[in-house]
């Protein structure tokens, strides 16, 4: 068994037991990364950083000074500022931007001993569900439909992250989730991905998309690996006012797939038209698996679910339109020269630097915040957001965790979805938890008829990542999902 096919827990334990050196892990991954350029998963490869961290880990092991992630190389989504390494958020407007600072989350991972394999491709400014909006070209999913060589999307926006784990060119990665950007690609790629409660992970140093929704999380092959990574990433950060001043739970140590006494909520509003039969079948199967683990299924109602997507597509673009105003060509990143006035420079720079989807959302956001429309759109959306939160609060009086499908479809082909609204529908199941700031996770449940992975989605109560992880583990154990994409790259 090659090192790249191991889980983080296996790598960690094997390395600690002296079965292999950290340097061997890093070298094997560096080689795999270098050989997978066709996937376009990495925007920057940093093999030297991976080796340096590995050597430090090997020395630490000899000195008996191991840290939680010593010896583990990771991929970092390009939304996280990395000191001295290009950070572009998938956008031309940040081409060549090299921060002099390290995001709190990636810094936490480094402090925990992890190395960095490189920066992972993503939808531009995390706006997209297919990775097709990246200025550096789409990531190609390692998965293919049975008997087809059509290039598929890995989902988005953390598409490079998901593809990297699925293709075993990183044992684990960081992602960010604003409205499904960890969970939908995790489902498409047949891996696990968790977004914790809003505020668990510091947003400091993560390029902002929609501040009230953005949350970092972990993606890996297994539920356990997600727990290991998230524990290292999370924690209070005084540099982020919205960060939660709470200790980080020992999620890994408390993993248990015994769900006796737990109630699993099945929201009736998530049975929507047009969802493939495979997905609804998997959902029913998921319910059975959780029952088998000791849980009781209860039907719940989240009555404002149908307003979640429109609400999200008002709030997220509104915040984004303001958050992205700083990319103005004045201080860093792209500047288009040769124009007369400051306003012309702004217009030319932003016209050149931003892609179509980013421009669309900036315009939507600008519109919903403008005088005369603010109350009708933005204020209204904030009110609906409160109702959606209340829906969940009420539901969690009846249940401990909610089970739904992660996405309404399996991975689709690159270029197949051209209508933005159809694209936005990808996140229909993911967005409500984002609006409510709740922890949520996607766990692979099986393959559809075309041989593509499908995910099951678990939503937990505020701060209760543990129950989400435990339910995820129960599914993982029962699903026995071991499928890996056949290597074609």
């Amino acid at each position, binding site marked *: 068994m090659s090192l790249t096919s191991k889980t983080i827990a296996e790598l960690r334990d094997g390395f600690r037991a002296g079965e292999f050196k950290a340097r061997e892990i890093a070298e094997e991954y560096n080689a795999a990364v270098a050989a997978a350029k066709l996937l376009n998963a990495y925007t920057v490869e940093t093999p030297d950083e991976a080796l340096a961290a590995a050597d430090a880990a090997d020395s630490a092991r000899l000195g008996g000074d191991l840290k939680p992630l010593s010896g583990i190389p990771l991929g970092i989504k390009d939304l*996280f*500022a990395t000191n001295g390494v290009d*950070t572009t*958020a998938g956008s031309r407007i*940040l081409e060549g*931007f090299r*921060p*002099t*600072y390290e*995001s709190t989350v990636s810094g936490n991972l480094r402090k925990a001993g992890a190395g960095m394999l490189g920066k992972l491709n993503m939808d531009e400014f995390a706006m997209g569900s297919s990775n097709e909006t990246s200025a550096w070209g789409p990531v190609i999913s390692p998965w293919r439909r049975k008997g087809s060589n059509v290039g598929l999307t890995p989902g988005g926006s953390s598409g490079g992250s998901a593809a990297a784990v699925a293709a075993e060119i990183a044992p684990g990665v960081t992602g960010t989730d604003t409205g499904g950007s960890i969970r939908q690609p995790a489902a498409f790629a047949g891996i696990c991905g968790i977004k914790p409660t809003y505020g668990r992970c510091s*947003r*400091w*140093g*993560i*390029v*902002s998309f*929609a*501040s*009230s929704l953005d949350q970092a999380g972990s993606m890996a092959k297994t539920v356990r690996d997600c727990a290991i990574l998230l524990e290292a990433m999370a924690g209070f950060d*005084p*540099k*982020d*006012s*919205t960060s939660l001043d709470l200790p980080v739970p020992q999620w890994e140590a408390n993993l248990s797939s015994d769900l006796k006494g737990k109630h699993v909520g099945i929201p009736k509003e998530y049975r929507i038209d047009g969802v493939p039969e495979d997905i609804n079948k998997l959902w029913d199967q998921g319910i059975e698996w959780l029952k088998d683990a000791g849980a009781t299924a209860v039907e719940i109602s989240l009555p404002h679910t149908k307003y979640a997507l429109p609400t999200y597509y008002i709030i997220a673009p*509104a*915040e984004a*339109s*303001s958050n*992205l*105003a*700083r990319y*103005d060509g*004045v*201080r*860093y990143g792209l500047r288009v020269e040769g124009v007369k006035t*400051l*306003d012309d420079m*702004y217009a030319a720079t932003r016209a050149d630097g931003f892609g179509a989807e980013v421009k669309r959302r900036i315009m939507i956001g*600008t519109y919903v*915040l*403008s*005088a005369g429309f*603010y109350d009708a759109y*933005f204020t209204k959306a904030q009110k609906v957001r409160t109702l959606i939160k209340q829906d969940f609060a009420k539901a969690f009086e009846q249940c401990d965790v909610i089970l739904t499908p992660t996405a309404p479809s399996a991975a689709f082909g690159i270029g197949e979805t051209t209508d933005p609204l159809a694209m936005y529908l990808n996140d229909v199941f993911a967005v409500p938890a984002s609006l409510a700031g709740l922890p949520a996770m996607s766990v692979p449940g099986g393959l559809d008829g075309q041989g593509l992975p499908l995910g099951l989605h678990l939503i937990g109560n505020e701060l209760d990542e543990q129950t989400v992880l435990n339910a995820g583990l129960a599914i993982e154990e029962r699903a026995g999902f071991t499928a890996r994409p056949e290597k074609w790259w």
Partner: protein
Amino acid sequence: MADAAAPFRIKGETGEWEVVVGLEVHAQVVSNAKLFSGAATAFGAEPNTQVSLVDAAMPGMLPVPNRECIRQAVRTGLALGAKINKWSRFDRKNYFYADLPQGYQISQLYHPLVGEGEVEVLLDDKDETSTKRIGIERIHVEQDAGKLMHDQHPTMSYVDLNRSGVALMEIVSRPDMRSPAEAGAYLRKLRSILRYVGSCDGNMEEGSMRADVNVSVRKPGAEFGTRTETKNVNSVRFVMAVVEHEAKRQVELIESGGTVAQETRLFDPDKGVTRSLRSKEDAHDYRYFPDPDLLPLELDEAFLEDCRKSIPELPDAKRKRYELMGISPYNASVLTAEVETAGWFDALLATDVDPKQASNWTVAELFGALNRRGESMAESPVSPAHAAELLKLVADGTISGTIAKQVFEIMLETGDPASKIVDERGLRQTSDTGAIDAEIDKVLAANADKVAEYKGGKQQLFGFFVGQTMKAMQGKANPQLVNERLRAKLD
């Protein structure tokens, strides 16, 4: 002098007009660090040396409120008797400009930190009853922008972000002022209170305090007219000039058949006029919305109590206390206008001098000397302790008032204490009747003709003899004794 109570009117062709004025004062908060970053705030540093990653709006940077800036704004609100909102929130004001790195200013539109309050102004220093209350609508805190420099390069403008993110309080008045003088009095009073509280240094030349002046005109008692807003006026004098000029301009405009446009104007201090900057149609749509990077600001009672305890005695209370000590209303008013002056005078009072005499001496002698020397109270070469000693030497008859003036001049030059000067220069007043008598005899002998005139009934010559005797004794004779002895010899 004009009667302060008489309303200010602009005489137009169609009759008298009244001016309506409201001020939005931007006051830089005294704090070592910026509103949302740890960068320093000192004035006059080299460009771009006080800029954090947050101030430069680098990708992924987040604001964290600086508690001290909030405390200062709350203290200001308390000093203005205003309502403190225990729950407030920051909003983003979105617009593009090269001095605004984030592309938005973090401000407070919907839920400001401080609500309604008021300022009582005295329109005439000499008339205690000439007071007027000017309403405060709100105070909110916000970030300052950076500064553009257009004179550094032939074809480019440079940006200095030192000021970017510095905390400002925007103090919004009600449209309660009705004359240039009222606007001036309000701004002076506001500045005085902020400086007492220590929440703003009030330094208008350095831009620490500047005002947006809203002016409209109407026939007395009519509905409010359309207002113009003249931005960034940076002295009391200029604010008064803006009101004066805008009122006249608007009256002339209306009377010649025009209408006042709601617009932003700029003041040209060289020409003393305002000119249009942008009209309402060109006004930005700032797309205000709650800043999602920041949680609502919630203040607890303990914090407010700490703020309350830290408010010093304010000018009005101090003025009233001085008056109760027997100090004249005028003296009390001028002694309390500036926090440095009041501090200096409080220290003098603490030495047990006679308050009334001390106030007269301070206002007449010390203010006069400082004025002449172009020095502020903070720069006064004479300390309250030294002044107290000088006043005591006069009070106990050690030196005469005339000698005291000489001693004071020497104190100003040397900084020495009065007793040292008096001793070293032999200026102690003499009550030696023998010496006085001897000099009186010489004066009378030398002025026999005048003695005759005096005895013939020209009583006013008595002062002449006193003066001659004092002069002969180099001012050191006890004037009371000189009087007594002269009367004994002449009458």
